[in-house]
């Protein structure tokens, strides 16, 4: 069995010096290659902190974060990130926004100019995958919220990251758009060789998409339980109305309610 892609070992992370907020404490988590992991927990429990620790945006005071067999001491460029707020740059077209990571990542930035056509083709293919074919020339502010979030996913994927980190990416969308995007993510995960970590407060979303749901305690956050999701892939939206599905959602709900009460 290969070593996990991400391994978080006994991590403590405190913001703002020795007397600051202890965001996570005694955090342990392993994520295997190709896995789809959803992280749920009460708000403020350190889910975003977990994201930032994994990507190397924060370095923990104690414990170790190991990504791809290397201890994280600086940002790791094998990840792509997407947040709730799509943060597209309004002065760039959607296509130019999607190409932005390539202007940054060491491996691509020197090749970008000479291989422009190849990269543009790749971006257009990604746009097609998320259902935005032909929208590359539009500016982000000409797109709806759901479309912006799709473009945001393309931007997170353009440099072919091994690990895709999504921090409540669909929080600001309406229910129908959200379900559409669940399917987009599901298909991305099925068709590409990528490991996905999804932070969410929507328990149905976590059960529908993930192979494994990780529940965190209230702050200082740590993992209190991990649940393997038993449903077969490919999963269809009908699954949302099956009793077994709702049972699992309810069980998770109960656990989080307890975790909140304990805080």
């Amino acid at each position, binding site marked *: 069995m290969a070593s996990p892609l991400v391994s978080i070992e006994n991590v403590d992370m405190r913001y703002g010096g020795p007397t600051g907020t202890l965001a996570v404490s005694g955090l342990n988590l392993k994520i295997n290659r190709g896995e789809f992991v959803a992280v749920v927990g009460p708000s403020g429990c350190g889910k975003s902190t977990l994201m930032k620790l994994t990507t190397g945006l924060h370095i923990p005071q104690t414990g170790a974060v190991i990504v791809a067999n290397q201890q994280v001491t600086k940002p790791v460029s094998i990840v792509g990130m997407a947040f709730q707020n799509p943060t597209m740059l309004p*002065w760039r077209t959607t296509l130019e926004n999607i190409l932005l990571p390539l202007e940054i990542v060491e491996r691509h930035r020197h090749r970008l100019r000479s291989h422009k056509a190849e990269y543009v083709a790749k971006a257009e293919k990604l746009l097609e995958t998320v259902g935005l074919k032909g929208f590359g020339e539009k500016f982000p*502010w000409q797109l709806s919220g759901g479309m912006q979030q799709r473009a945001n996913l393309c931007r997170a994927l353009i440099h072919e990251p091994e690990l895709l980190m999504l921090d409540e990416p669909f929080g600001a969308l309406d229910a129908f758009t959200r379900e559409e995007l669940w399917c987009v993510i599901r298909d991305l995960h099925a068709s590409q060789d990528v490991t996905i970590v999804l932070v969410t407060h929507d328990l149905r979303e976590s059960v529908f998409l993930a192979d494994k749901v990780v529940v965190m305690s209230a702050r200082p956050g740590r993992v209190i339980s991990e649940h393997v999701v038993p449903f077969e892939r490919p999963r269809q939206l009908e699954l949302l109305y099956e009793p077994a599905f709702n049972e699992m959602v309810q069980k998770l709900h109960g656990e989080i309610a307890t975790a909140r009460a304990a805080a």
Partner: protein
Amino acid sequence: MTTLDTTTPVAVPPKPAFKVDWVRLAPFLYTVGLFVIWEIGVRISGLPHTILPTPTRVFEAIIQYWSPIWKNSLQTLYTTVLGFMIAVVAGLGIGLFIGWSRTIYAGLYPIMVGFNAIPKVALVPILVIWFGIGTVPAVLTAFLISFFPIVVNVATGLATIEPETEDVLRALGAKKMDIMLKVGIPRSMPYFFGSLKVAITLAFVGSVVSETVASNSGLGNMMASAQSNFNVPLVFAGLLMLAVEGIAMYALMAWVEKRMTGWAHRSTMAN
């Protein structure tokens, strides 16, 4: 206001040969209206020229003294634009420097505010001691008074980058320089171009103040000497020329702003 009595049937869209665009005409109509009210007001009240001349009298003065007015207008325009251009370069540079890091921003911001609180007219005597009277103190006063809004706007544009954007880029291995070039600077451009309209207006204030107290040329000086000769129509002629120059430069800056940062007017990011 624009309801005209039309007998056009409802089905056919009314298409008059000359459609008067009242909104576009409004500035001209209102300006003419202002002059008319001014003219009538002065005539009815019988105020002497030496207190408030009529617009016709002011226009007469403009024609009568056209040569000095023209020369001094150009001089004022020259000092103002020169001071303004120095302010643009310095303001952009200092703004980028201040916005670079939160520490520099925190440290220099109060100093800048303090500096800006000093009435620039109080600096003119010092500038005169250093550079003598004439063009140099006028240019410098225009510069000093107009560069602050540019600095503040550029620095604010840089310092208010969304943390998420920064995180996304830093996670990819972006250096501070990358973030500034890809996000910070383009993002601060609408703030920068927006500040130019304010800055050019202030630059006129600076140059005219300095000309008034410490120069032998320019509209400020011309008005000061006209005033000491009780030539009030000429004073008003000078004011009118300043207004014309001010409007022209403001319109130019507004146009530049629109050309350079059209995206910001459509998106909701900058206002």
